[in-house]
């Protein structure tokens, strides 16, 4: 298949592997902060191709995983109202809240619909004018422009029954926080999709402040191996910088139009991340101009059940790369994709599920 097969060429991967082995002398640990990378790395068996001294760890790259339980609890509380239709990406439906999940609420009769894009949610709002249609806006810079576009469209079309419940977050504060917390990282495999929108400038602080490299990578095995090689080379040459491996998609300046849309609709706020706690300016809030499309404001009076965090779950440490899924007592036993205890097991991009499926 064009544009894929070239990047899954076993011979090229082997050459890259040999080169990594040839030039790398120091023990290093690189972190990927994108769920798509976590999945690809496990799916293609990349760790088994690397020398002992080059280790990969997974970071907080799965939006479902870092989202707070109280967000799910609030979505569940809203879904229990008769005048509401919840629209959501499929990943969120099984994420455990304190005592229930959206899937369980749906089985009990709540109107919860899985959509593939926010445009489907807008259509539902158009067809159900008497219902309040809530879209669960989750994800990093990748999905945020779509949420912004949805809100802009709703405003123009006068769809006042449509709102977005924003759990959107931005990646750089989390990348900085991990280093500040002392997680042993020698370089970042930078997120491909996020960077397509943002460009490379958002990472410039990392080499400057922390002396650590970021290589923005594609998702195919050749991409990942080449990115790892570039990071190894930076370390061996002692030249940390931001580089783009994924040049066929990511432009240094990013997608300006998408950035403008995000800027128009959202503003930064402090936000809570599983495993990292509250990080300054790491979340995105809907601006006052779009208040009528902000679920938080529309349903500010909804009563939410008290928060209960699961016992024994080490999702937090796993998201920080301090522990691997195998270190968790619940992993594979009590906690599996059918019965996820923590959010890392729910999403197909969560570290625990990726380990469960491909590397147990």
């Amino acid at each position: 298949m064009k544009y894929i097969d070239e990047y899954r060429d076993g011979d090229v991967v082997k050459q890259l592997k040999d080169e990594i082995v040839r030039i790398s002398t120091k023990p290093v640990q690189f972190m990927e902060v994108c769920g798509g990378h976590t999945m690809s790395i496990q799916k293609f068996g990349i760790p088994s191709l690397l020398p002992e001294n080059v280790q990969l760890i997974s970071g907080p790259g799965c939006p479902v995983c870092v989202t707070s339980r109280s967000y799910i609890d609030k979505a569940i509380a809203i879904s229990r109202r008769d005048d509401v239709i919840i629209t959501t990406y499929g990943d969120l439906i099984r994420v455990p809240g304190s005592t229930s999940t959206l899937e369980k609420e749906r089985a009990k009769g709540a109107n919860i619909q899985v959509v593939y894009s926010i445009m489907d949610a807008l259509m539902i709002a158009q067809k159900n004018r008497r219902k309040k249609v809530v879209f669960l806006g989750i994800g990093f810079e990748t999905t945020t422009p779509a949420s912004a576009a949805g809100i802009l469209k709703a405003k123009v079309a006068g769809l006042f029954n449509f709102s977005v419940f924003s759990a959107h977050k931005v990646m750089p504060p989390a990348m900085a926080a991990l280093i500040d917390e002392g997680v042993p990282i020698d370089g970042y495999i930078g997120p491909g999709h996020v960077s397509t929108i943002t460009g490379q400038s958002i990472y410039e602080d990392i080499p400057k402040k922390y002396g650590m490299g970021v290589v923005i990578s594609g998702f195919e095995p050749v991409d990942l191996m080449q990115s790892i090689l570039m990071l190894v080379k930076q370390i061996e040459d002692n030249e940390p910088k931001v580089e783009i491996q994924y040049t066929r998609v990511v432009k240094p300046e990013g997608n300006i139009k998408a950035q403008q849309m995000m800027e128009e609709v959202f503003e930064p706020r402090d936000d809570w991340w599983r495993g990292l706690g509250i990080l300054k300016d790491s979340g995105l809030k809907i601006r006052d101009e779009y208040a009528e499309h902000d679920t938080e404001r529309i349903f500010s009076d909804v009563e939410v059940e008290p928060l209960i965090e699961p016992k024994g779950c080490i999702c937090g440490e796993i998201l920080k790369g301090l522990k691997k899924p195998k270190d968790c007592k619940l992993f594979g036993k009590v906690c599996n994709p059918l019965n996820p205890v923590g959010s890392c097991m729910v999403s197909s991009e969560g570290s625990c599920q990726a380990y469960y499926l491909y590397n147990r």
Partner: protein
Amino acid sequence: MKQNTILLGHGSGGKMSSELIESVFSRYFQNEILSRQTDSAVLDVNTASIAFTTDSFVVEPLFFPGGNIGKLAVAGTVNDLSVSGAVPKYLSAGFIIEEGFPMDQLEAIVKTMAEDADKAGVHIVTGDTKVVDKGKCDKLFINTSGIGYFPEGRRDLGIAKGVEAGDLILINGAIGSHGMAIMAARNELNIGANIQSDCACLNDLIYSVLNAGYEVKFMRDATRGGLGTVLAELVSKHKIGLQIFEKKLVIEQQVRGMCELLGFDPLYVANEGKVVMIVSKNDADAVLNQLKKHPLGKDASIIGFVTDEYAGKAWMETIVGGKRIIEMLSGQQLPRIC
């Protein structure tokens, strides 16, 4: 007057039911046993052991490129019998129909079932029809059960007896076509792909191998859950190790493209015309050639081997030479969001 849609009365057991049976079911499923119209079909089975299976079909949409629910209902049960090593002989067919279902669609489905049963050499000898209120079922559900017999000297091939290190794993062609054909046909995604389901009765293909006397040790049809699930189940039940090679798997371009787009793993996408065989090393090449001679096996390949190295695990060497485990699929595959 000829009715255009199914009415509740068609399930009443009265005159309308008889008319429906006569004008649709008996018309297509004609055979001597069914035409007796007795409460039970009485079958002559002259054999020590029989294979017996049942399956219900609830596919949406009912018609898809490469088949319809009727074709699935016949092939599914015929294949379940065939992979056990049995010769499928008799089927039952139960229909649960939603009030208001178009008569011409029912007829088209029944006609396909009759044609496919005929081609596979099986008889539909007993059946049932129920009509439920509108909204109480989604258009049409079909259940088929089937009976097959074991010819002399043939044993149950579903239990993996005698499988040992060195045996080779074969499959008769491309994986993932049925699942992706259905996804594309649902058209919720507006993907203009025209993927054909691989839905087919495999008994003829399977006999061509078994009748040639090759040492086939295990068979399973890789349906829901895909090839990955069959392999993962096999290792967990029989404490053997398996290794397959990603580059040996055949996946059609459009199926691959759609899987990439949606974040699906083709290993876990449903098939309806694929059989996985474990064959002794000595006979594997001959079985491969035999499979390739048949239209349903032209893309057959040897995809891996049985090993005693890591009992209880199935591994895949990825296309780039990495290794990953093949685990049972839990829940449904969901499209990715990021």
